[in-house]
Each structure stands twice: as structure tokens, then as C-alpha cells.
């Protein structure tokens, strides 16, 4: 498992709808905003890159020092972004695919308004379990 990893789901309106620190490292106080900064900045790259390929998994799109941002863009232009320091691309791809499935399940919930924050604790547990499994 990566020592630092921050997973975030950004809605098509560029609003983070789900955030999780999934790294095994001890969570540092200032890490939270740093991670947000990096991921937020990486959106600029994603914006360009997303239209150049038909693949959903964009691989590593951006880096900041030793942290890498991997992105998966769904058909609805929701972006699953992972900030990590490991280089396990296959694992990340599987992680994204499974989270995408979970996300679709969330979307299928008639009470969930697309683009709103995901508050389901079940989703959270599942994502963390996937992170443990793949990252």
C-alpha cells in the first residue's frame, strides 16, 4: 500500500464530492490542503488530456515533487483522482475501475442527486477496502 495516497472524486462542475485519505502514512495536519492543491491544479491537465484519448484511465497526468496524480475520467466527466507515491499502475487502474462501479451504484440511487456530495458510509468503507487491496 502506498504510504501517501489521497483519493478524491470531482464532479463535472469541479466540485469535490468525495474525499478520502487512503495512505498508510500517518496523516499530517497540513497534508490535507496540500493534497487538495495538487489535485486541484492537476484538473487543468486533465481538462486538456481527457479529450485526447478514448480511454477512461488517463494514467499519471501530473506530478508534484514525488507525488503523482493518476486520473480516471468517467463518461459523465466525473473525475476520479488519486494522488499517490507508488508506481503500481495496474493496481491503480483496477482500483479506479472498481470505484467507478461503486460510483455508478451511487448514481443509480434515485435519492442521490448527481453532483452532490457522496455521504454514504457504505461507499466510504468499500473505497477504503479497495484502496487497501489495490494500492
Amino acid at each position: 500500500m502506498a504510504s501517501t495516497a489521497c483519493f478524491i472524486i470531482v464532479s463535472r462542475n469541479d466540485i469535490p464530492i468525495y474525499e478520502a485519505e487512503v495512505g498508510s502514512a500517518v496523516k499530517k495536519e497540513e497534508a490535507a490542503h496540500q493534497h487538495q492543491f495538487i489535485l486541484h491544479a492537476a484538473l487543468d491537465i486533465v481538462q486538456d488530456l481527457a479529450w485526447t484519448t478514448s480511454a477512461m484511465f488517463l494514467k499519471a497526468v501530473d506530478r508534484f515533487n514525488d507525488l503523482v496524480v493518476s486520473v480516471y475520467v468517467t463518461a459523465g466527466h466525473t473525475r476520479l483522482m488519486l494522488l499517490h507515491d507508488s508506481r503500481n499502475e495496474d493496481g491503480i487502474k483496477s482500483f479506479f475501475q472498481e470505484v467507478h462501479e461503486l460510483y455508478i451504484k451511487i448514481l443509480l440511487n434515485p435519492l442521490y442527486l448527481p453532483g452532490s456530495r457522496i455521504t454514504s458510509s457504505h461507499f466510504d468503507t468499500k473505497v477504503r477496502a479497495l484502496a487497501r487491496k489495490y494500492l
Partner: protein
Amino acid sequence: MDPTSSNLGKMLLEEITPVVMILRTPLVEESCRKNGLSFIQMIQPFSNFNNIDVPVRTASDQPYRLHQFKLRLHYASDICQPNVEAAEEHLKEVVTRASDNDLTDLNSDPPQLESLLRSAESESQSSRFQIFNKELIRASSFSEHEAFDHPVACLLVVSSKDDRPVNKFVDFFNTNQFPSLLNNGAMDPKILKYYLLIHDNQDGTSENATNVVSEMRGTFGASDCRMLCINSAENGSKDWQDNPWSACNSDALLGQDLGCFLNMDDLDEIKDLMQELSSKHIIPHMEQKVRVLNQQVSATRKGFRNQIKNLWWRKGKEDTPDAPTGTMYTFSSIESQIRVLGDYAFMLRDYELALSNYRLLSTDYKLDKAWKRYAGVQEMMALTYFMLDQSRKDAEYCMENSFSTYLKLGSSGQRNATRCGLWWTEMLKARDQYKEAASVYFRISNEEPSLHAAVMLEQASYCYLLSKPPMLRKYGFHLVLSGNRYYISDQRKHAIRAYRSALSVYKGNAWRYINDHVHYHIGKWYAVLGIHETAIKHMMLVLACGHQSIATQELFFRDFLQIVQKLGKTFEVFRLQLPVISMPSLKVIFEDHRTYASSAAVDVKESLWKSLEEDLVPSIPIMRTNWLESQPKKKYKDSNICVAGEAIKVDLEFKNPLKISLSVSGVSLICQLSEKTDSVDSEVGDQHATDVDGHLSTSVLQNDLELKKLKSSWELNSCNSSIVLSEVDFTLGGCEKTKVHLAVTPQLEGVLNIVGVRWKLSGSTVGYHNFDAILEKKRVKGKRRTRKSPSSNLKFTVIKSLPKLEGSIINMPERAYAGELRLVVLELRNQSKYPVKNLKMKISHPRFLYPGSFEDIEAKFPSCLEKQIDCKLKGLHASSIQLSSNLLFSFPEDVTIQGGTTFSWPLWLRAASPGSIPLYISIYYEMENVSSDMRYRTLRIHYNIEVLPSLDVSVQINPSPSRLSEFLVRMDIVNKTGSESFQLKQLSFVGCEWEISSLPPNGTACTSQLLIAGQALSSFFKLKKCDKSTCEPTTSSLSTLVGSDVSFGPEAGVLFDISRTPLADFHRYERLHQEKAEEGDPSNIDFILIAQPQESIGGSSAPARLFCHHACHCSIASQIPISWRMDGPQALHHDFSSSFCEIGLCMTIHNSSDYVVSVRIHTPGPQSSTGQLSDATGIAQSPRLAGNQEGWYDVSLVNDIKVTSDVMGTLSGKPASLDSTAPYIWSASSSTKIEVGPMSSTKVPLQVSLFSPGTYNLSNYNLHWSLLLPSNKDGLDRDQVRQTSGTIQGHSYYLTVLQSP
């Protein structure tokens, strides 16, 4: 795009130019100082030639012309690697100066994104960055591995005042003033020299000087010497217009009167000198050198032979250790010469030549592993490619190569790496590759100290802004990074500027950690600069940071308070985020004609009260004619009514979003009370007008306006006695919610408007929040709900003060056991001066609560319920009341409550059934002699009573097997309480047709009258039809309860009178409640069980309690319509020796149903008739038993008492004493069929034959019955469940026959 016109091209043309080393005597400097200039400064402006025309030939004799040229002038002492610390210091100074010059107003609002995009170009090109970059590049000048910084010529300057100037010139060479570069052999000491004599005209005529010049010419050669006359002008009489020094923007020189002693001739002379120096000496010299070196290089390195040789030679040197500094190359080495050749060619703009040489050199250095030199050459190659505008890829590759090679060298290459990076970024920018440029800036920033990094990052951010399309998020991120670095290196203003610009990107986005970080830091830095107002503005935005950790929240909050403290006054905020007010929780409680006894009553739904009060209050149209129409205007319709002197309560929920606790004090409402209605109208109009304006203008302005409005209202409130406001203080723990009850009491008539709320956070910050804006919003949102709900309407019409009753029920229990009977007292207080009259009361659950009579109040409970000798009928007044689920009770006419008095009225409370029971009481009263708008008011009282289960009574009635028209009553009583024990007192039977008596006829119903918690008890009674004619007159009135009572226990205690008011009334309601389908069926009878808890009997101080349980509508009609009795002899003697014994029996069958019943008596034949049929009957009885058990609940208790279901004793199990096995035969007919008319009896003769003596159980017969229903189906439809036919096993009938002696 022409590379020379790009930024980088200009820079290169300026920076990579021949260096002229200057050696001068102190007297020269002295002369120049008179003008406020050093020697270099004096001649500097003239070393830049923008329109010269010098013909040059390339190495291959191609002529071309130079139109632009520049010389760099440096003192010999300056030609060395700059000191790192000094350079650092210098750069810091540059940045600080830039921040001081920064004209942006820190107090103004952060820049908008649009304006940023517009100004991006100019900003990124701004002189701030240019200067810094230039300085940073200069910091790495004069390194020995690069030839373009090596002096091309040497200008020796001596003043004419020096004694023996010619000797001075010679001294320059002796005193070894040359820089180390020349001395350590890095460059050729044989350098072009030019001799200059300075003559100061203030020191006298130039005659002496001319002599010296001629002497010089003799010594050093005619062309290389020259004289320069300066300071020819009189003081201050400048005859030239544009100051050439103003262009050289050295800030330190500004303001002085520069060049005041120089006249036009002097300037011309200087110009002339420099022109001559460059075009006649330096350029030809360089051209010459290029030619010579080229020839040398061609001879040694070009051609196939040389290449092989070179390779071979290099290979031989392979084993030599790495020498990154490259000291092994002296000026005479071929590598240095190639480098010089390349650099000279570059400076003369013969880029082709330069490139070919650099290429040659780079392979050499690479093979030699002279990395620094290699990197330097690569760098030059890239620049050459750029200037040639060729092969962008190669240029970038070389730059990348050079940059990384420099970085690999560590600290020694760091400066160069930075310079290389800056060239690179400029190159990328020139080609519009801003994104790449930004990443290069970022790479540079990683290697540099924080201050440099900050500048680099800021430039990177501008690159992102300039890229197409603009990458705003990257821009923001790099600005934040840069701001952070600025702050680390103590450049607060720069830091703030960077963050403020970043703010425009992050404004209004949902990335909370980012927003918090940016606002917090800006706020903090503003506070450090002492700009507290702005600091607070930013700090406010991070206060409601529920997502942050506790430590961060504490930090934010503490810093916020500190800044507020520093501000030195209470800080007032409109819509402070701490604590959060939840607007939907806003609830206004006011009392117009509806008044409430407690807050619990307020929470009850209005519709519930309305339905309860339906026939209590006058209907609405009447109400209108009474007081509303008397008002001249209609506008009160949309405002609520309240009474002067009575508080309007506002409930508001405060929520703490943080995990730390907050102390909030002085929470109070802000109200406007206007006494005249007209002025209110205009004011309201104004308000609406301003609201509209507010929507048009920016939200900030509106907020300011609102705050001002609220503040002024508050100040008015505090000095106005007409409104009394309550203040509340509280502390909110982490994430807590508190409902705050605020109150406002208007003292005068008028119109009251509740505008907002004000509170103080931590004693220093005052928050304001207005209400009406929210309502406004609501109205817009919910189009369907155009009418505002009254609780959200905050406008009140205050009317004259009125009497108001306050009421409560004294000793109302919160919980009670089911069946508990109590006397409670309703107490009404009138606090006003005026009396009230016409009291009426409505109770929602009369089954639970019933008004008593006034005398009951002094009565001693429970003895007042006991049967008195002179038993007179009471409760007749209640008999006329229509039984309904609500009870309307009018107090006697003469009841008025005078001002300031208290009025009490007894109420009977009986906890009828278990559960949580809400009781609603509404009391109506009218004001007496008050000429007011309001004529009546209601007081609403609400109590909730929790009723626990106690005794559970169930009754089963079976017809007596032995007697007709007698019934056995079995009463099962289960104590369901946890701890209470009950003393059973009395069972009363209601009705006069029947008489009840305990089954053992000695008067006590059971052995134990005590029922301990959890136990069950069954007791038996007999019910007999009574023929008493005394009952007859009373049966007509259903309400009069006459009945018979049975006392439990051996001592015949005092019996309670069930016909008296509370018991009888409650019984009526109980009947109503337990009502079944067959109402009015005379066969339904009611029982009342009265019990007392165990401890109250012991005479303890606790108030005596009484429990009464009502079991109503117990049907005596069993499912089987028939009952029968077997009559005959029990024992007799017979002589069996003579004959068998024939015994005649008689069966009496009674039909208790309304229909004709056909009964068939089936007696089995001789085959199956054995005396041991009891087993079979035992089995046969079970379905019937189950049928009989319907309606019985399952008594499953721990200490399960065996409930004996065979009440009739007919179906006992195995008859153990059955010793006789001898058969008997039913003689006569085996099956008899008869019809029994409704409610009548028939006798049927039966005969049995016995063959031996013994005891016989004659129960093996069956009765088949079926109802002969009338043809119309009404009867059937009414009760489908009723059986229409069935079979009954015979009762056991024991017959003993003895052998007669």
C-alpha cells in the same frame, strides 16, 4: 518570429557582448565623481551602439555588417566570480525594493480574474521579474569555463593630474591588478590594450595633458592612445537636453544632478571615444582573432586525419580521473581556443561558425568528462540554435542536457543551472510554449533558496496564466507556492500579493481545505502588517471550518480572536458564521386570543387545537365582526396580533459547526416598534425599496447596508423602554446544537417588527443576523406557498393589554398505572386587574380526565367514594352530556376569576389504558368590562401522561352445568406490573337484572386478596338472574349504575360506590370505548374491579390510590345456544340376579338463542358403548375446548398457575375411580330429534340399561344441534362468526348401582 526581437534575443544581445576591462587610477575616479558618477557610469551610456555600421568578414571571408553593438564595461577588480553571499544579499535587496515599489493597494479588494487575464502579459514581462532575472544571471558571470565573459580589451585610464602618467600606465602591468582569470592562465594575457588619459578641465588647461598624450603615443603606439577632456562646463550650466544617464536605471543615482560638469563637447568626445574603441579596435581585433583561431582549429581538428588523431588521443586520456572543474584547460589548449572562437563568433553574430565550433567542442568535453564545460557549451549551442531559429528540438535538447548536467555537478553548477534555466524559459516563452516554461521555472525553484524560488514560482504561475487556454488552477497553485516561499523569506507584501491573486482563482469553489489555507494565511499576514480590518475579513471566512481537525479549528479561532483583540474594539459582523443559526428552526410563539399554559402546549399542532376548540370558541366570522372589522384598515390581516405586556417568544436554534466549544453571550432580538401605524407603512415601504436596491447592487454593499440597519435598530432598542428584550448566555460544546428561547415584550401599542438577532461571540465579536431576508428568499423559493405561515411572520400588531389566565394542573402525575384513579386540581390564575367570566373547558380524553364537582375539592380521597348509608344518586347532571370523544364542560355561571386571584377546580384522572397518552385541555374565557379588540381568549393546556400496565382483567362467563339461568363467572386477573402488589377490594357488577355472588357462598371470593407483582389469579363468581322488582324503575336510565358488589377478602370492608360521579362517569366512557358490535344486547354485562396498591393499605403517608378496572360488554351468551341438564337418580339398589336394571333419566334442554334450535340426541349402540369411553371423549373434547378458548389471552407467566379450563367440571380427564367395566346400554331410541323454541326449555326422557352393579359415567352421548335460521339473511349477516350447528359431548353423569341385598 525573428529571434533577435524576442525577449531572449534582446537579452542575449545585451548580455553576451564583449567585456572591456578597465584599469584606472584613483584620480580618474575622483574627477568623475564630481559629476556624481563613477568612470564606468560616465561612459556606460555611450557603450551601447544602436546604429553603427561596421563591416565584418566571417572566417570564410563572407562580408556582413554589424548594426548594433554593445560593450560591457567592468573594472578589473570586478572581473571575478561574484561572492555567493553578496549576490544573495543583492538579490534580496532587489526583491525588497520591488515590494516597496509595488503600488497595488493592499487594502483594496483582491483582483478579479478577468483583469488578471488582461494584465497577465504585462505582468509577466514586468520589470520586477526582468531585473531579478538579470541579476540572477549576472550572479553566475565571469566563470572560467566560458569565454564570453572574458575581457576582450583592456582600457587603461590615467588622469592628467597623476604625476608621470606614462609611468602609471606601466605600473598597471607591474602592480598585478589583473583579475585572476588572466593570471591563472584561463585566458590569454595578451589582450588588446587601449590607453586613455583623462583631463579634468577644472584643473587647468589641457596643454600639459597633450604633452603627456604625445609621450604616450610614443611609448604605446599612436593609435592606441587617446585623451579625454571632461568637466569642461561651468557648474550647473548643462547645455544638453536629454540626460543619457536617466536611461541607465540605477536607482541609487536618481535624484542627483548627474553630469553637471559635462558639456556637450565632453559628451561628444566620450561618444567619439567609445565609437572608435569599438569599431576601430575591438571589432577588428575580434575579427582578427576569429580568423586566426579558425585557422588553428582547422589545422589541428578539421579533416579526416585530425579527427582520427583526436579520437586516438582522447582515448588515451580516458583513464584520467574526472576533473569537473576542468583546470587542465589553459588558454593555449585547443579546447579553450575553440571555445574562444565560438564565443567570439557568437558575439560577432556569426552563429554558423559558433555552432560548428560548439559542436566540435561539446564532443571533446564529453569525452573528457569535463562536465561543467560540456554543460556550458551545450547551453551556448542551444542559444545559437535559438538565434539561428533552427531546429527547436535540438535547442531544447541542448538546454535540457545542459541544465541537468549543471544540476548533476551540485553546488558548483547551481548558479549556472539557474542561468541556463532562465535562458531556457525565455526560449520557451519566445516560442509560446508557456506550459513547458512554467515547468522549467518550477524545476529551477527546486534548486534555489526560498526567495529565488518564490520569484521563479511566481513567474511560473504567470506562464500558466499566459498559456492557451489559461491554466488557472495551476496558476493559483503556483502563486500559493510562491507566496509561501515569499513568506518564508520574510517578504510579506509579496506573499500577500501572491495569495491575493490566487484568491481570484479559488473564489467560490468548493475545495474547502484550499480556501481555508488561503484565507487563513492572508488574514494572518495582514494582521502581521497591522491591517486588521482586512485581516478579519479573511479570517471570518475560515471560521466555520467544521471539516478541519480540532487543532486547526482551535488555531483558526484563536488567531481570529487575537486579531479582533488587536483591533481594539468590538468587531461587528453581519451574518457571523459562528455559531450557525439554523433559520428553519426559527419559531415564533406569540399569544393573541390563544394562550398557552406551557411550552409543551405550544408544540402541539394548531389543527389539533382547532378541532378541539371547534364548538368552544365563537366561530370565526363572529370573531371578525367583534374586533377585526372595528379596525379601519385591512393590513392587519398579514400581521399577527399580540398583546402589550405579554412576551413574544422566539425559538432559534444555534449550532456550533466546530469541535471546540464556543461561548456566546448577550443573545437578544432586534426589534422595531413603531407606535403609529402610518409611519410603519412608510417604513415598510422604504425597506422594500432598499431591498430591491440591494438586489441590484453588489451583495457586499447590501450586507453593509443590512448591518447598518440592524445596528441602528439595536441601538434604538437598547435606549428605548418600550421594548423589553431578554438576553441569553450559553456555551456551545463541540458540534452541539442549542435551542435558544428569546423573548421580546412590547410595552406599548403599535406595530412590532422583529428584525434580527444579535449575539456576542467570546466577548469580543458581535454577530448580527437579520430574519426578513431569509423570509424573502423563502417566498421566492416556494411559489406554491404564497401565504406565509403565521409562525414565520415577524410583524405584529400590538394591542392594549388584556387579562390573561395562567393555568396548570396540580399534582398531575407523569406516569401512572393503568386503572389508577386520582383527584387532581386545575388551577387558574388571573394576573391582571380585570376579572374574567364565562369559563368553559374542553377535554380531549374524557376517558382519562373528567371534571369533578366543586365539592370534591375538599373531599378525602378515596374514602369519599365509599358507599354511604344515605346513598343518593349523583352525577345526574352529566347524564345529559352527549358521549363523544371530547368533553365540553361549562363551569357554573357564577364562576368569575377576579384579577389577581386563583381559581381551583377538581378533576378526576383515571389512567384508562396503557400507553403514552396526550391530554389536551382548552379553557375558554371572556373578558369582563374591557373595551378591547379582543373579547375572549383561550388557554391551552397540554399534558402527557405515561400509563403503565397494571392489572389485566378478563372475564369468562359460562352457563352453569347444573342450573339453568345461572352462570359461572371466571375472572382472571394478572398483575403485569414490575413491583407493585395489589390488594383486590371489590368486584362490582353493573346492572340490576343479575346478581353476583362469590362462588363459595360464604362471602369471600378467594383465599388471597393480595396479588403480588407478576402473579395471576383466577376467581369464580356466580351470576344469577335476580327477580328483584326494585330495580325496575331504574333500568330505564342507562346512566344510573346500580349493581351488586362482591367484596374480596374475609373482612367485609367498606364497599365503594360505583354509582357515584367519577366511577360512574368513567364507566360510561369505558363502555363507549369497549363498545362491541352487539350494542344493547341485554346479555352483555359489565364488571368493575376495584383494587388498591399494597403499600397504601399499610397507612403510609403516600396518598391513597385507588385502581378501578372496567370489563365491559362481557357476553353471557356463549357460542352454543343450548344448555341441558340430566336429571335422574344418583344411586340406587337393584337385584341383578333377577334382571338387568333399567333406569329412566330426564334431560332438560334450554335454548338461549333467538332462533329455533333443532337438537338431536345421539346415544351410541351396544357395540361401542363401553364404560371406558373416557379416553375417546378426552380426545374428542379438545377441538371444542379450543373453540371455547377463543377470546382468551395466553397467560404465560413465570409462575404459571395452572389455569383450569374445565370450569364446568364436565370434562375431567380420566375417571380414575372407574372400576366397573361392565357395559351399559342406552335403551329406548338411539337418536332423538326435537326442536326447541327460542328462549324455551324442553324435556326429553332417556333410558339406560345396566347389567351389573357399579359406578357408571353416562357421558358417551352426543348432542347435535343446529340453528333453524329464518329465511331472511339479516340475522346471519349480522354476525357471521356465530356457529349455526355443532356437536357437543355429553356431560358426565355418575350413576352408582348396587346389588340390592
